[in-house]
């Protein structure tokens, strides 16, 4: 198993954190993981993304020029990354905020109302959790729900750990959503 994942959105959506959460969960289940954020000048202007690799074998290049999976949380990120996804790959897009349909027909496209799911569980800030919940439903070999829930304690800063109950609810709601 080797998945090369891009998680992209605007600053504040927690895409970097979502990547780390996934890595910690997969790491604790014995996978090789790498996470590298977009940084510096690229960060300015409000968009953020991270490249995550999860693999059964050692990871060479940590960059992800052609993702096998893209989790796209806003419209500018869809514009930037849709064309780069590997044929046969997976695109999860946040249809709560993205107002157009993806155009690719050679990949699996999954429509996820990430913000709606988050709000239904009582938070306007856990759309990233919805995305991770959906991803591991579609690709359970990356990490189990138990591992992700356990990883929350490490991935979330002490200051925000009080929201973990809601985070878990959102993860599970998205995980079982259609």
């Amino acid at each position, binding site marked *: 198993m080797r998945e090369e994942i891009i998680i992209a959105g605007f600053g504040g959506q927690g895409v970097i954190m979502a990547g*780390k959460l996934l*890595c*910690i969960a997969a*790491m*604790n289940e014995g996978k*090789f*993981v*790498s*996470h*590298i*954020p977009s*940084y*510096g*000048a690229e960060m300015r202007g409000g968009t953020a993304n991270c490249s995550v690799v999860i693999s059964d*074998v*050692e*990871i*060479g*290049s*940590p*960059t992800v020029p052609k993702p096998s999976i893209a989790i796209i949380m806003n419209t500018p990120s869809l514009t930037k990354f849709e064309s780069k996804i590997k044929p046969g790959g997976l695109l999860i897009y946040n249809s709560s905020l993205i107002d157009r349909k993806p155009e690719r027909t050679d990949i699996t496209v999954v429509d996820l109302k990430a913000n709606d799911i988050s709000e239904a569980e009582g938070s306007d800030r856990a759309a990233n959790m919805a995305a991770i919940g959906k991803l591991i439903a579609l690709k359970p070999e990356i990490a189990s729900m138990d591992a992700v829930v356990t990883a929350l304690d*490490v991935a979330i800063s002490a200051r925000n750990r009080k929201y973990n109950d809601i985070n878990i609810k959102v993860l599970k709601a998205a995980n079982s959503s259609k």
Partner: protein
Amino acid sequence: MGKQILMKGNEALGEAAIIAGCRFYFGYPITPQNEIPAYMSRRLPEVGGTFLQAESEIAAVNMVFGASAAGARVMTSTSSPGMSLKQEGLSYLAGAKLPCVVVNIMRGGPGLGNIAGAQGDYFQATRGGGNGDYRHIVLTPASVQEMAELTVLAFDLADEYRITVLILGDGYLGQISEALTLPEPTGKVFEKPWALTGAKGREPNKIASLKLVPDHVLEEMNLSLERTYNEISSRECRSESYLTEDAEYLLVAYGTSSRICRAAVNELREEGVKAGLFRLITAWPFPAAALKRASLKAKKILTVEMSLGQMIEDVRLSVDNPERVDFYGRSGGMLPETEEIKRRIKAYGN
């Protein structure tokens, strides 16, 4: 074995420095190594150490000079343009035989370049960018785990040989988060009778590199440095030979580019191609003898760098029949590609 945690390369390096007993850090912000000063500014006060943001790279390396002269374990870190500024200090540190650890998380150059990871400072690191006859040890980590382990090693080597140890990483290694098992302290203790602690009950100590009279004193000092360098060369060469024993095609790389090469070797082996990887862990001293051994059966030797060809000069000097040595590199913050490495290796077979 300790517990695995997910940690960023720059922060792993910072924590490892603290594990190694480093209690003084002086630095100046520059991307992509900013997590190191940020981490040290948070952690050092917790362990009774001192973090100071200097007014420049030049000031930072000279604060390192002072702290080292006082006997402390001390570190500074920077990225390529800042490393150019530190060269003056590195030359003086060498002349004064002061131990310290300097980190260069390389980015694209020349000039301001960009902030992506690169390996364009190999010449500067291994040939010495400052004035005079001197060397420093250059360690080249290739993972977050090695960023930590080689940092611990760096402090011991620095004290053992009274020398600057340069950790030569790149922006990708600085920014990547990976599984890390924190290293243990080595517990080695080095006496520093030369340190400036005040001339109480002893003759005054002098830390200086100026050797004016008589005429031959500077040469004598340089010859004594050379003896140290020769000892380091014979004892401290480090490298990894991966599937090289029967390798018909040998890749040579270090740092991030060696990771990409390793992935290429694994895939080539699955396809039945006898490829291997020779990876530097020390760039100076250059592990020439080990490379020569690893290259014995190689029909072709492909040097892979994130530069337009710097380490290749050392590779050519180390192997028999250097006409076997070929080059593939990407520059300006771009990464070599596994597919391109495989394509080239396969083309040699045709």
